């Protein structure tokens, strides 16, 4: 069966450390993968997109890796801050689908001061 998985348990990280979130998928051939941030009571906010032929993408303190062999993406936040606390969602964009994304359920990240 096809599925996309993110750790359902909250991730607790000490401020200043690197937070690493995981997105695993099975039986998909994605064209790209996206990461979003969602705060309580708000819609998701787009952070980064990485294509299937890219290994790594960076934006400020954020880094995303994409391993199509392992069928996994890692999302890193370096020098984490309490303001980074939120739920982070990954979403796959598939070949042949111009717009439809396959969403993970998200991982809640808590950065402790």
């Amino acid at each position, binding site marked *: 069966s096809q599925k996309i998985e993110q750790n359902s348990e909250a991730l607790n990280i000490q401020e200043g450390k690197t937070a690493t979130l995981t997105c695993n998928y099975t039986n998909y051939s994605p064209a790209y993968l996206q990461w979003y941030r969602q705060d309580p009571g708000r*819609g*998701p906010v787009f952070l980064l997109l990485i294509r299937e032929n890219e290994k790594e993408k960076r934006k400020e303190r954020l880094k995303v890796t994409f391993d199509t062999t392992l069928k996994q993406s890692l999302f890193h936040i370096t020098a984490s801050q309490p303001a980074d606390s939120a739920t982070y969602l990954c979403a796959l*964009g598939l070949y042949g689908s111009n*717009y*439809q*994304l396959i*969403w993970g359920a998200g991982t809640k990240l808590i950065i402790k001061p």
Partner: protein
Amino acid sequence: SAVISQKPSRDICQRGTSLTIQCQVDSQVTMMFWYRQQPGQSLTLIATANQGSEATYESGFVIDKFPISRPNLTFSTLTVSNMSPEDSSIYLCSVSTSNYGYTFGSGTRLTVV
């Protein structure tokens, strides 16, 4: 990127009634997307709304239950009809942006009693 105004932000409705959710975008967009997000679960695409044509519904969603209007390139509505407690969820509208990410409205938290 586009800015979306979505309303209402929340509502509590009686079963058997209908609620119309509105999304206004500050720029013209070809496609608008309507999602449902249940607590702790991934986003599920309900339908895609194109201006000047009928919306395209995903498997499990039908027009009679979720009628959509798209009168122009900046506005869309989603109606949740004949509501039951199972319709309690967060409803989100979304548009694609030039960098392939998606911009979301702030969501409508619907509770059916």
